[in-house]
């Protein structure tokens, strides 16, 4: 298979809060057109990585650089990065009183297209006619809100979509649907950085990177990394990977 272009590259990132490293020595390469998963236990630094990538929430690295198609974007703000084509589906998306689902989805589209908005909703199994005029407020369930988030990301047609635990808070029956949406993103040409703490979800990806204590400690085929995760990380009481001080293991 032809090597795809590098869409995203993180070089030796360190990010700390109050003197405590949340991400350290973090390097990562994501190739265009792939689903690349970041697998990690609770508190591994997954959401921190997502915020760092979209440049929000004052998550500025103390060290290291972020490249998007070779361009250094480390000092760009969230708007600038979004306009380059990077977006995030939040683990816990915000609520907006008075803003309709339709308008919330349309806001990120370069050219709002009614047909695309409907398709985006139908894709996440929300009937457009029931949801378009509803508000993205507290009255939506957590699961509905997360699906709308995915629909909005899909409709935006970003180059890189970071999905922070799209499967959390979604009932198990709907998991297949979430997976098919992720595949639809890939098919429309969006590269997906799929953040999850479930190895069975990471299995749909092309490459999995295992994040532990703010570092990528293993990378490779999703199945192999998943087995490692299940055997070594899930039972691990300290959440500090034994290999995290050694160099990155590659397959």
């Amino acid at each position: 298979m032809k090597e795809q272009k590098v869409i995203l590259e993180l070089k030796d990132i360190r990010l700390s809060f109050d003197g405590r490293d949340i991400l350290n020595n973090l390097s990562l390469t994501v190739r265009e057109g792939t689903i690349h998963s970041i697998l990690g236990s609770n508190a591994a630094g997954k959401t921190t990585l997502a915020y760092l990538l979209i440049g929000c929430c004052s998550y500025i690295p103390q060290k290291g650089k972020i490249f998007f198609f070779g361009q250094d974007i480390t000092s760009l703000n969230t708007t600038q990065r979004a306009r380059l084509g990077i977006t995030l589906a939040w683990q816990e998306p915000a609520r907006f009183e008075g803003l309709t689902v339709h308008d919330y989805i349309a806001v990120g589209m370069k050219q709002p297209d009614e047909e695309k908005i409907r398709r985006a909703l139908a894709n996440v199994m929300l009937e457009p006619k029931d949801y378009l005029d509803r508000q993205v407020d507290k009255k939506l369930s957590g699961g509905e809100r997360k699906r709308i988030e995915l629909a909005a990301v899909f409709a935006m047609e970003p180059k890189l979509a970071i999905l922070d635990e799209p499967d959390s808070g979604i009932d198990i029956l709907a998991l297949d649907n979430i997976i098919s949406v992720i595949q639809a993103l890939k098919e429309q040409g969006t590269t997906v950085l799929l953040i999850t703490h479930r190895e069975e979800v990471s299995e749909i990806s092309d490459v999995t990177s295992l994040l532990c204590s703010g570092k990528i400690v293993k990378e490779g085929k999703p199945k192999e990394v998943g087995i490692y995760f299940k055997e070594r990380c899930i039972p691990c009481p300290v959440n500090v990977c034994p290999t995290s001080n050694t160099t990155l293991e590659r397959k």
Partner: protein
Amino acid sequence: MQQDYQQMLQAYATAEGNPLIFRDSRIAHLVVHKNKVLGSHLVAGLELVPTEEEEGISLKLRLIKNTRLEYPVHLCFGIIPEEGQQVIRIQADIEDNASIKIIAHCVFPNAVRIIHKMDAQIKIGDNSSYEYNEVHFHGNNGGISVLPKARISLGKKSHLVTNFSLLNGRVGLFDLDYDTVVGEDSSLEMSAKIYGFADDVIKLKEVGRLIGRNARGVIKSRIAVKERAQSEVINEMIADAPDARGHVDCIEIIQGNATAKAVPIVDVRNEFAQVTHEAAIGRVDKKQIETLMARGLDEEQAIDVVISGMLK
């Protein structure tokens, strides 16, 4: 006079009114410039008697028993010149088994030194419903004082909705005072949405008195202030009957050097009654802004989307 009428219609359209309704014979309307009635139309079951006074008009509105109006009644009040005073006195009597929806536009497109006072006494009988929507447009100078005052009473099994909005142009000085008494099995929904900037001053005092068994009331305020604008919202709900239920809900968003104050007053005088309240004042939520920025909006656009959603 004809010219005033044309200008009123123009201002009316700016305030998002649709002037075509003034030609529809199914729809009752009244257009008042300063203290002159420029146009009116009535429908069956509705009596609307305006009397021109020195500083404005007094208006007697009566909806006759068993009349359920199919279309809203449109009222348009205003002053076209830069200066002037308009006092509107309304006495409304909504008889039993009747329903009416009123859409009032108050337009002062060129206000530099204008005072607009409204003084309403509204009596709603039993099994009736009264919906009152008021939209204001004050132009961009801010030279206006608007002082609406209403005393409303609701009989049994009746329903009152009031929506007030002032979202385009300057507010000036706005001082609203509404007080409603709610009888048995009746309900009240009062809502106000205002966007203030420059040195606008917004004062709201809305009181609901739930005096009948099973009376219901919600008072909702949504205010956004920026620059040097000030707002003060007093929402009071008094529950004085068994099974009365009330809720007071105020959100104010501030930016720049604006200030906002919210005073929810919850006053329960019966052990079987309940009133709840929520109040929040603050900047636009950061996560909301960052969410929209991650879709490509800049910070200012994002704030606009959040505020206009809240005020919609």
